């Protein structure tokens, strides 16, 4: 019975954490036990419950064996995630084995013992509800209830073997003392070593960062490395999709207008629909204007547009737009614009990603503008920021949306922003806005630095701003060094366009 599984591919079952199932290439190995190890507060109990909830959702009943928190505590705590354990118990879909310590009863050990009663209770519960899934949370707590540790270890091994012969898929959680160190305390990995998942909750540069990693799945494939996740109300653990979703991107050749006719021409006919454009420039060079024109360009064609603003207030944005001849209020009334203004620091980047995805799911925009990425960059580590941008760009492309993000350069005259350096490879197009000092006068210049998959105008064009918006004029002649921030006049007209490229 056991050896026959060698020739069969390992079947997997959903954990209820959609993107984790992608990483796990299907979910947890069926009819086996997986160790889920993590430090205190890393989300082990949530994982345990979510795994059972996913099963119940598809008709596979479950048993929750709790060694740490009492069953009433778990019922209460898991309500906020939208899991009504008490109802499932009433409906015969879930059974608890409450093995949490009873503080009211004093216990003395007087001789050799086994955990026969616990095993009998687990078997009884599995039989009672016809369980296909069992969650055990958490192993460390059972050790603290008895002084004879080797007996506990041997008995847990026996229970783990019994679960296997019952044909259930089980997860057992265990504590770790540190996020990077031994897999688990107390040698529990000795008896459930085939499948190991690590949950981490690391303090990184003063910010909390949760990740999930599949350390091993014996005899079956999985994605490697740490994947960031967050824990949200009405949903539990949500893993942030990275490479897993990127694989499914289809690039389109459909073009959409930037809202500025001359810029469309520079880009070879407009932006690509499923692409992400980065607009980089110093403060006041016209980034928010470019955003405004981009949104107007969408609304003029009857497309819904979403603006995520992290720098300016709603009033300021609307006033600015009016000054450039764009009526945000009317666009909003027509249902073509949704403006979300917020402070970047109100939540972590993982949560921002989920918030933005939710907004996109609800509003279903064709265009999304984010002003600015630099403001968001400050609310996470550089690694978390990169993961945020990867997650957001993958999602936007997957939904066939055009995204326009802005980033602010530190220096007024040139150079690149930190944001840009971190994410330039992730965006399809980069547009630079620059101040250009010409004969004692400040002018503005725009250039398309990169346009993936298309020919584009590589010259630096001067532009002006008036009550109707942005107007692109002629390229700068006889000037070089604009992008570097040190324009130099060149007398020979032939070398006028020999600046950086």
């Amino acid at each position, binding site marked *: 019975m056991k050896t026959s599984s060698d020739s069969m591919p390992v079947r997997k079952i959903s954990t209820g954490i959609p993107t984790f199932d992608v990483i796990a290439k299907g979910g947890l190995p069926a009819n086996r036990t997986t160790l889920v190890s993590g430090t205190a507060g890393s989300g082990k109990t949530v994982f345990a419950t979510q795994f059972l909830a996913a099963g119940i959702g598809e008709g596979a009943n479950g048993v929750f064996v709790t060694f740490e928190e009492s069953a009433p505590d778990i019922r209460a705590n898991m309500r906020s995630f939208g899991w009504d354990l008490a109802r499932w118990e009433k409906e015969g879909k879930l059974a608890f*084995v*409450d*093995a949490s310590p*009873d503080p*009211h*009863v*004093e*216990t*003395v*050990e*007087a*001789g*050799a*013992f*086994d*955990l*026969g*009663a*616990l095993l*009998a*209770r687990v*078997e*009884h*519960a599995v039989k009672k509800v016809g369980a296909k899934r069992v969650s055990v949370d958490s192993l460390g707590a*059972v050790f603290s*209830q*008895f002084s004879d540790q080797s007996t506990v270890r041997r008995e847990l091994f026996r229970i783990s073997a019994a679960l296997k012969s019952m044909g259930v898929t089980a997860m057992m959680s265990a504590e770790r003392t540190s996020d990077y160190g031994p897999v688990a305390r107390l040698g529990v990995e000795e008896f459930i070593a085939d499948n190991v998942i690590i949950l981490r909750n690391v303090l990184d540069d003063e910010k909390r960062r949760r990740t999930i990693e599949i350390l091993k799945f014996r005899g079956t494939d999985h994605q490697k490395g740490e994947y960031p996740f967050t824990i949200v109300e009405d949903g539990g653990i949500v893993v942030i999709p990275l490479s897993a979703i990127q694989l499914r991107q289809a690039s389109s050749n459909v073009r959409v207008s930037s809202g500025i006719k001359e810029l469309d021409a520079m880009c070879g006919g407009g932006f690509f629909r499923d692409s992400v454009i980065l607009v980089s420039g110093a403060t006041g060079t016209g980034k928010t204007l470019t955003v405004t024109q981009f949104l107007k360009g969408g609304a003029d064609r009857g497309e819904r547009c979403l603006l995520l603003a992290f720098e300016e207030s709603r009033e300021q944005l609307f006033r600015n737009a009016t000054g450039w001849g764009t009526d945000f209020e009317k666009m909003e009334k027509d249902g073509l614009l949704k403006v979300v203004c917020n402070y970047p620091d109100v939540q972590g980047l993982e949560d921002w990603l989920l918030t933005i995805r939710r907004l996109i799911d609800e509003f279903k925009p064709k265009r999304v503008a984010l002003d600015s990425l630099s403001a968001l960059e400050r609310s996470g580590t550089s690694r978390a920021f990169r993961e945020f941008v990867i997650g957001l760009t993958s999602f936007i492309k997957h939904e066939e949306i055009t995204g326009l993000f802005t980033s602010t350069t530190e220096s007024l005259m040139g150079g690149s922003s930190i944001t840009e350096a971190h994410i330039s490879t992730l965006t399809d197009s980069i547009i630079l806005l620059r101040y250009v000092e010409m004969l004692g006068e400040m002018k503005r210049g725009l250039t398309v630095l990169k346009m993936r998959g298309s020919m584009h105008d590589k010259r630096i064009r001067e532009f002006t701003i008036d009550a109707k918006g942005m107007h692109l004029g002629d390229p700068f002649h006889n000037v070089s060094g604009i992008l570097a921030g040190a324009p130099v006049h060149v007398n020979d007209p032939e070398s006028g366009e020999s600046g950086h490229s």
Partner: protein
Amino acid sequence: MNEPAANKYLLKLYVTGTSSRTAQAIENLRRICDQELEGRYELEIVDVLEQPQAAEDDRILATPTLIKQLPPPLRRVIGDLSDREKVLLGLELRPLDHPARNLADQ
């Protein structure tokens, strides 16, 4: 404390099947009770394989587990009950043996 004679001991012993450990625990318990609680105890033996729900209700993990239901307070003794002193301690039969005798003498 009341006089021990006024107290009836109500004991419950959880065991798993008819293993040698089960037999050992029952034998050890009978011997202790016959010596210390002659005629003053009632013992119920519960096999968790036959009555898992009872084990669930009493939240038993280990077998053998002896529960002293009466007199209060509720106490538990885990193991094959081979450690006589620990069993007596768990049943509160002579937790303060010498001081009690001293009190009785005075």
